[in-house]
């Protein structure tokens, strides 16, 4: 497929190690004279303010709807301020709509996937960035090429495979296919190619350290910040993944997005219950964004294709 349209520069990085220490871990250090340096005018602030409102309002309104009751939600004009029923609606969603079980399932699924992706992506990223082996460039292009394969295409055989393994409706069916991602491998490669000096690896080699030991005592300490970012981004994706979990899981054992479809499919549609479920399913990620927003932003930007 159109692998070659992906503009990835795979040239080897400069052999000398970057000397300047970063001012703060995990934060992008800008080139001194790159990018535009204009100051924002009032118009820019207004437009950005509108964007922020549009971005946040649907979630705010989710909270408003989740805190009122069904009749109040359906009135015109729609409510704009929170009502008194937030906690009781959240509790109802937790108990009646199996959101509790769904949250636990999502936590397991996203946690395992994020952990294994970080481990395997760092191993592979290290190999692609710093180890010499036959076919390295071709294999790396292959990894990038796999990003172009739409995951939905194989869904029928995958489903058959899982029912043969006896995994349909079980969490392993969701976990195994996404144990590691091409994006993750590429992300770690890009980081390590720059941040890990070749000399360090070679010196360790001369000292007789084997590859796994180099990985453990040299690569891991350097790679900690991008590993944390990759963990969070993978967690978000796994938590929100919809198509495959929807196909292979059922309502007795759902992840959060799967459980949410059940909420909206009931015969008696209780809008504030639906919104309470939606809010509950989003809260963990929102909390993560509140605490680690800076790292996630810088991680997404660092993983971007540039130039």
């Amino acid at each position, binding site marked *: 497929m159109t692998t070659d*349209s992906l503009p990835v520069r795979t040239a080897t990085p400069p052999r000398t190690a970057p000397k300047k220490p970063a001012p703060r871990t995990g934060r992008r250090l800008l080139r001194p004279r790159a*990018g535009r340096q204009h100051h924002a005018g009032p118009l820019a602030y207004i437009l950005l303010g509108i964007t922020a409102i549009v971005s946040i309002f649907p979630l705010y309104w989710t909270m408003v709807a989740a805190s009122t009751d069904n009749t109040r939600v359906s009135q015109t004009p729609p409510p704009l301020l929170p009502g008194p029923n937030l906690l009781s609606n959240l509790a109802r969603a937790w108990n009646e709509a199996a959101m509790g079980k769904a949250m636990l399932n999502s936590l397991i699924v996203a946690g395992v996937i994020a952990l294994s992706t970080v481990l395997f992506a760092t191993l592979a990223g290290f190999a692609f960035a710093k180890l010499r082996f036959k076919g390295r460039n071709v294999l790396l292009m292959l990894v990038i090429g796999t990003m172009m394969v739409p995951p939905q295409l194989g869904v029928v055989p995958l489903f058959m495979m899982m029912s043969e393994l006896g995994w349909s409706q079980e969490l392993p069916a969701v976990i195994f296919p996404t144990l590691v991602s091409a994006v993750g491998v590429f992300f770690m490669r890009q980081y390590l190619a720059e941040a890990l000096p070749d000399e360090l690896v070679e010196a360790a080699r001369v000292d007789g350290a084997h590859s796994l030991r180099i990985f453990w005592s040299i690569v891991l300490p350097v790679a900690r910040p991008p590993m944390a970012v990759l963990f969070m981004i993978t967690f978000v994706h796994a938590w929100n993944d919809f198509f495959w979990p929807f196909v292979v899981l059922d309502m007795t054992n759902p992840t*959060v997005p799967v459980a949410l479809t059940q909420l909206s499919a009931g015969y008696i549609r209780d809008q504030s219950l639906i919104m309470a479920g939606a809010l509950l399913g989003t809260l963990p990620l929102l909390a993560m964004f509140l605490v680690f927003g800076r790292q996630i932003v810088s991680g997404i930007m660092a993983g971007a294709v540039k130039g």
Partner: protein
Amino acid sequence: MATSTSKAQTGQGRRGPSRAPGGEDTGPRRVPLLHRLDVKGAPYAFIAPFFVVFAAFSFYPLVYTSWISLHRVELATLDLMEWVGFDNYIALWNDSRFWNAAANTLTIGVLSTVPQLLLALGLAHLLNYKMRGSLFFRIASLVPYATSVGAAALVFTMLFERDFGMINWAFGLVGLDPVNWEADKWPAQAAISAIVIWRWTGYNALLYLAAMQAIPAERYEAAAIDGASRWKQFTHVTVPGIRSTIVFTIVLSTIGATQLFGEPLIFGQGPNGVTGGADNQYQTLGLLLYEEGWKNYQMGRSATVAWAMFLLLVLVFLAHRLIQRLRSRTS
């Protein structure tokens, strides 16, 4: 490649390699064979997990899909595969639902991708200014990305509700007639596109922003000296400067658009939404694939739809290539 450098250089040198204590030198002289095996074999061992997972859960299913598409397989009896040759493909070709779904996928794809990327470009430009609270604005634009398809689609379904939805209420305030967002074809497709746009604009904007920050300042200075206006600088320096990122986002969002599933499904109110509305007015290929396989129990048909999706994707990229080539020839 990322331009940021030396992110985590703090004090790694100290912890560099040291020989094992007690003079136990397991260096190359002692075990040359093991060492060579390690140097040669370890890289493959390190990348193996990725390729094993990909082969087992992506590549094999992908290839096997084509084999299944030549059979009649029912969901309840997955072991029984009856060879039917190209019957599934012929049936699909003659099925008006398929053409409807393909057209819907294409129109929703354009409706969601084009505004999304244009808005992202504008947003990235704004975020690139020096300003107070830039981190807040960046995180705020990323909030929709943290919202799952399920939650986002549920909220938007309510906002687009015909009778008490906030959007029709706002339409009423400015004197417009209420729109029947779910039942009418184009409003439904626009509403679904709005969910996609909302979720992905901020994410794409950050990718663009990262690329914009890598453009050397001299290029702007040179353009300014040449008397280029701000707008000219944007179109002649910024956009060409982030070209490859733009291509990257086009590729990714095109792939996303061909597979659109969750948004229309939930917009159609849950598992009964697989038909994409009462008249299939917003049924995408993803929904059709699911409907054939898991509602009509025809896995062979479902696999055929998957291949058709793949073909559509290839066609879109070929068309893109062709346009590019024609354009570069004319310019």
